[in-house]
């Protein structure tokens, strides 16, 4: 799923802070640890929701399906935090709102692109980056249109 270089030897331990895991979103972060992007889909009406939640807002079902997402989307907004430098990043990250093909949006990073080359509606695909405490988070890199 990813061809990102493996984390370099011991000296270069991940510095990104780990995700804050809640019970209703545990599946998402467990999936990310396995380099899988999982989404929440209603087991009755099929609606995708993000952020994950215990009840479907359309049909009120409590049946939740945790299904693999396409991992493909487009950038709907982005920013580069310059000051204060965000904790855990050696270089300022590109923070983005990514809208996935399934119609849900999430906040993530765009990696593998120069800030000058960033543009709205950039097509992206998922990859994963390590965090402290041996977790991983989904991030996105440019893909060809």
């Amino acid at each position, binding site marked *: 799923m990813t061809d990102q270089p493996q984390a370099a030897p011991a000296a270069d331990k991940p510095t990104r802070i780990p995700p*804050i895991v809640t019970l209703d979103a545990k599946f998402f972060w467990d999936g990310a640890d396995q380099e899988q992007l999982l989404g929440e889909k209603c087991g009755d009406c099929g609606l995708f929701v993000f952020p994950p939640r215990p009840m479907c807002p359309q049909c009120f079902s409590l049946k939740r399906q945790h299904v693999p997402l396409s991992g493909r989307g487009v950038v709907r*907004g982005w920013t580069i*935090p*310059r000051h204060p430098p*965000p904790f855990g990043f050696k270089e*300022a990250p590109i923070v983005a709102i990514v809208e996935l093909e399934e119609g849900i949006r999430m*906040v993530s990073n765009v990696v593998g692109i120069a800030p000058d080359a960033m543009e709205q509606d950039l097509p992206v695909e998922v990859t994963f980056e390590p965090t402290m405490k041996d977790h991983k*988070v989904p991030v996105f890199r440019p893909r060809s249109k």
Partner: protein
Amino acid sequence: MARKFTDAAIAGIGQTEFSKASGRSELQLAAECAKAACDDAGISPHDIDGMITFTIDNSDEVNLARCLGVKDLAYTTRIPGGGAAAAATIYQAMGMVNAGLCNNVLIWRAMNERSQYRFGQNPQQQQMQYQSGNGTGSLLWCVPYGAMTPASWGALQAARYMHQYGVTNRDLGYISVQQRAYAANNPNAWFYQKPITLEDHQNSKWIQEPWLRLLDCCQESDGGVAVLVTSLERARDLKQPPVKIVGATQSIPYNVEVISNYYHEDLTEMPEAKGVAKRLWAMTGLKPSDMQMAALYDAFTPHVLLQLEAFGFCKPGEGKDFVKGGGMALDGELPVNTNGGLTGEAYIHGMNSMIEGVRQIRGTSYNQIKKKAVEHVLISSGMAGAVLEKA
């Protein structure tokens, strides 16, 4: 007391000095501004029977009531949303008075948000406590990605809007310059006698590239602000000319949240402010052109444009031309944040701009609107709003 519909009014406003290091506790700031609001109205703090603030205030209701010697408190609430709830305090105070449940409602917000802790810094602990009740349900989804400050969340919220309508950072500079001009003439403002130019704005460092520079961001401040709400009838007998709360409301449309607000349908608008506007105009029978001034929550400059558009002062995407053309100035179409706003005067979580609206109606602002009589003022904190009227 008998339950009948009772018109509500703002009878008193109070504040401490606005600084970067108050040198005293937040509870003391709260007590001082509360006492000042009661003195302004001419009532005894002992007679307060309702107390309202919003989340992220650290002072305990009972501790503040103890300072003020409140004899018998009938109602307290703490509204979710942080600063987005600033104007919702007016809404709830109005409701309490309208319903005949309270006589003297104290609204307060006091903070050492510069000397004691800073919203603008990275979280102190790696695992910030994202407690419920702040109206920002999805912040935890931002933090592992380096979006750790209100400016980062706010920039991400504004990015699509600015992109869609071609709003440049230079366009935002006109808002900063105007508000600093107001602050420069307001002795209560931290930036008193310190106006800026558009070039100063453009030379200030990037906070969120390519959207927000330092001079697009509200200050970090220490201080307290309080408002005393009572019945219109009673307010007429008190010290100050009464300011009627003619309408107030809150709006949280589906999938909207405070600041980490990326999940609703159209990212080029502010649905919560549109919802507030719709209800407020319907409730009051008034329209944008009936307002002589607006106090708009300006944590970051793009949100001034989004609110101007949401309330119908200009069409979508035309906010930038409105401010560039001097629309916010004293002789403009709609003077906005004449205290200097949260960028120029101080950041007391929106409350300091709200009391500027009261001063404009009383005719006591340092930047008093003279071009026309101030009959109506709009107050907005994005997710809540109120219309004040000269009684």
